């Protein structure tokens, strides 16, 4: 509650003498226009804020050295870093104001919320709770409902049965050129594949995922999860904070790669991007793989075991090899709250629109690439080349097509395997090896482009080459082990 005395506190804080003298000296040397108070600027300079120092270097020319000279001189007046001194003074002022203006009603007993919060942060009970949330939120709601019921409806009933034939006949009438018809409404056309993919498959999956994610997020569970996993994540070079993009990756890796922006250091962003691309299957892909291996419990177990092992191994190695500042973890743990429907809906909607702005163009771009690949014959060439590694990992040549398509649409590749399985071309072993390799294999093209966009051309390409090589090596090794020990899955 706010006390009546909260009247006029709008004045600047005064610091002690040496600091004040230096502030006014610096203010006098800042002659350019910065669109902010010179005093604030001087304070930031004294704290050696990197961005501000760079700006002032650009704008003040020869006066810059003089200014930094004053900063250095100021430091000699204090034992501790200036940031510390300035923050301390501000804190003092803030608590003074708070004391005068805010009062707190008496202490309440440990509320239900606080008890629940304790349970969520318990290292032992926390595990099963996480599994329950993953099962109901991710598997049941996003997997079964979003990727199953909704996708079936939109894809089969709306696009394939109605929209596609309608658009195809319209375009074929309006544009008499076969090549352009193919680009727009062919088998891999912008509208028939790109738009359909975006709206009939990605939209329902991502919507349900964002919806579930927003609910979990608004309860305040995520920081508690981050706090639980921090020590484990440190081993793979990440901090607990990275749990958020990694969990998002189970929805859509492309989106999650974008969210790695929230990680504080470049090192963490690179490791997270690599792990997302390699070992976190997106919801679309996971749906199909679960379908493929659903009647083969041991096979599913092997798949899961290998993917988890790869995740841990690559994380451990990356954290050993990568240079840079070690991650440190600090996060506010907000009180638990019951999510509000309006907030959840608004959040889901704004994320969706942001997502489509960033990712939709990539789908269109993918369609164009496929179109070019087909008319130039590059595709059939790539399929031929891919057949070699495919043979090394013990799969039939036909699987090459599934792998190439897997690159353009992660789940599409798995769906290609589904056809091979139905035709009886794959043994249990081959199916497991194929699923492992495909999960690890190059991220879909949208994610590849996002990797390049976020991490830069050089690193994006290097990562993809590593993944390409690595996924087939793992597939090869798994196949070798299964054959050597004469295991039939």
């Amino acid at each position, binding site marked *: 509650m706010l006390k009546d005395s909260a009247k006029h506190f709008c004045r600047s804080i005064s610091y002690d003498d040496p600091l004040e003298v230096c502030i006014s000296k610096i203010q006098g040397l800042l002659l350019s226009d910065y669109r902010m108070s010179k005093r604030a600027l001087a304070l930031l300079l004294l704290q050696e804020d990197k961005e501000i120092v760079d700006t002032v270097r650009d704008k003040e020319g020869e006066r810059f050295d003089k200014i930094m000279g004053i900063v250095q001189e100021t430091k000699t007046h204090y*034992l*501790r*870093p200036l940031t510390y001194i300035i923050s301390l003074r501000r804190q003092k002022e803030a608590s003074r104001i708070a004391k005068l203006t805010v009062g707190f009603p008496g202490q309440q007993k440990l509320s239900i919320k606080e008890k629940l919060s304790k349970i969520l942060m318990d290292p032992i009970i926390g595990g099963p709770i996480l599994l329950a949330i993953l099962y109901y939120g991710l598997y049941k709601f996003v997997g079964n409902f979003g990727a199953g019921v909704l996708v079936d409806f939109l894809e089969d009933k709306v696009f394939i049965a109605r929209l596609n034939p309608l658009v195809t006949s319209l375009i074929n009438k309006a544009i008499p050129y076969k090549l352009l018809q193919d680009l727009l409404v062919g088998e891999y056309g912008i509208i028939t594949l790109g738009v359909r993919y975006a709206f009939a498959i990605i939209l329902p999956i991502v919507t349900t995922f964002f919806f579930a994610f927003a609910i979990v997020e608004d309860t305040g569970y995520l920081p508690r999860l981050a706090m*639980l996993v*921090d020590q484990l994540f440190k081993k793979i070079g990440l901090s*607990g904070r990275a749990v958020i993009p990694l969990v998002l990756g189970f929805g859509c890796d492309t989106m999650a790669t974008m969210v790695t922006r929230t990680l504080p250091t470049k090192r963490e962003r690179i490791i997270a991007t690599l792990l997302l691309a390699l070992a976190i299957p997106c919801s679309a892909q996971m749906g199909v793989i679960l379908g493929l291996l659903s009647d083969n419990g041991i096979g599913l177990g092997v798949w899961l075991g290998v993917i988890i092992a790869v995740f841990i191994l690559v994380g451990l190695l990356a954290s050993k090899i990568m240079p840079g500042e070690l991650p*440190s*973890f*600090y996060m*506010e743990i907000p009180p638990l709250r019951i999510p509000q429907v309006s907030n959840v809906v608004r959040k889901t909607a704004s994320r969706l629109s942001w997502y489509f702005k960033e990712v939709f163009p990539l789908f269109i771009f993918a369609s164009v690439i496929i179109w070019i690949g087909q008319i130039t014959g590059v595709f059939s060439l790539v399929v031929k080349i891919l057949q070699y590694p495919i043979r090394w990992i013990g799969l039939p040549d036909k699987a090459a097509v599934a792998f190439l398509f897997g690159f353009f649409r992660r789940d599409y590749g798995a769906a290609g395997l589904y056809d091979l399985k139905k035709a009886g071309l794959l043994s249990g072993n081959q199916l497991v090896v194929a699923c492992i390799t495909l999960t690890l294999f190059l991220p879909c093209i949208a994610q590849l482009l996002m990797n390049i966009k976020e991490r830069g051309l050089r690193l994006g390409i290097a990562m993809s080459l590593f993944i390409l090589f690595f996924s087939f090596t793992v597939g090869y090794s798994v196949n070798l082990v299964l054959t050597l020990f004469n295991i039939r899955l």
Partner: protein
Amino acid sequence: MLSEHAEEILEALWIQIEEQGKKPMDVGAFRDDPAIEELIKLGFIRRDDAHIHLLEAGRLHALACVRRHRLAERLLTDLLDIRENVMDTVSCKFEHLLHEGLEDKVCIILGHPKTCPHGKKIPPGKCCLEKRDKKLLKIISSLTDLETKEKGQIAYLETKNASQMQKLISIGAIPGVPIVLVQKFPSYVFKIGHSQFAIDKELASSIYVRLTK
């Protein structure tokens, strides 16, 4: 017993040679200093034509002196709230009163601080390595050595690592703020004001808390 003046010379020698990695001290100002003779007799230092060198026995003794000096500084600022500008003169006298055994008690009370208020390293003593002080009176302690539900005020932040300190400041963990430790495992969770924060062990070890009952 070494004279105060001789102890100070030893300290200065150690800081120059061991801590700052500079060359041995010039004989210059100390040419006719009786303390130098005292130190040479004890086998603590060696003098050649131009320089004074620190010997192994002297190094150990100097280390203990530096430790006492810096602990004294911590004691004066953290507990007795002596202002920084007068601290030097007081702590110089005070350190000579802290003798073996006593210094470790002070170290325990202060929660085994790693740096002095100026940010320089305090050489660890036996007590810091053993840490068998659970039962003993503890007045200041790093957050990692607190038990859950113990509370106090933040006494100071270890300011060695600037980026770590920035992070702590950004979440409002600043000297003077009341703090309660809520949980220790798997991460450190504490409460300041009405907010809870989770931090890792590295960050937690740089928060020093003055305990309150």
